[in-house]
């Protein structure tokens, strides 16, 4: 159980550390989209080189990045909630199975979305055609997502086995 406490503490720490910059990122994004679009160039000067690209395209890509970031944080939130069930000694609660499946689904979405958006951003904003076939964070996210989905299936089978065991007289 000490491992669970350590994991929960770490996830809580990551959750807090991630939430604080996310608030700043949301404020920045809101300013960028609704108030002053030149803020982007002043902050990320040199990151996106193509200044002649339409502003809406940059805003769209920024929006997708923000959505991906928010979905990742939501995954972390659900994972925290799931760990709470483990602490309450309810590992086979139906919410745990649903949460694992949800996390898996979202991580795959984040991985695929991240891959496509990074590719599109490079192509459209930098004019660079680059496909990374190595070990990218997006591939790891997709693998992690699939792992969570498999874990959800395993928990479903375990729950059925537990119920059957309980209903054996």
């Amino acid at each position: 159980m000490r491992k669970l406490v350590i994991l929960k503490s770490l996830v809580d720490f990551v959750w807090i550390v991630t939430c604080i910059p996310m608030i700043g990122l949301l404020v920045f994004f809101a300013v960028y989209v609704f108030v002053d679009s030149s803020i982007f160039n002043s902050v990320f000067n040199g990151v996106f080189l193509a200044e002649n690209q339409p502003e809406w395209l940059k805003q769209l890509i920024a929006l997708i990045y923000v959505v991906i970031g928010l979905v990742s944080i939501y995954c972390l939130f659900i994972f925290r909630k799931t760990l709470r069930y483990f602490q309450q000694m309810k590992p086979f609660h139906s919410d745990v199975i649903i949460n694992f499946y949800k996390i898996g689904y979202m991580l795959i979405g984040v991985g695929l979305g991240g891959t496509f958006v990074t590719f599109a951003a490079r192509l459209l904003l930098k004019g660079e055609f680059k496909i990374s076939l190595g070990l990218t964070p997006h591939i790891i996210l997709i693998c992690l997502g699939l792992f969570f989905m498999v874990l959800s299936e395993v928990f479903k089978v375990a729950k059925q086995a537990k119920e059957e065991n309980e209903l054996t007289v």
Partner: protein
Amino acid sequence: MPIVVNLDIMLAKRGMKSNELAEIIGITTANLSILKTGKAKAIRFSTLEAICKALDCQPSDILEYIEY
């Protein structure tokens, strides 16, 4: 489930109460209730043997297959 547990009928025939049977065969009344209400997913041979011994009957007197 098409398997019906006729434990109630056998208990009534033998004039025995559920808690008495539970005590004789060594299971909890809650588990016996699960068996009686048909919620049980499986029954151990040892439990079936104990029930048959206590009620002096055959497994077929307790379990019945009914096709719906």
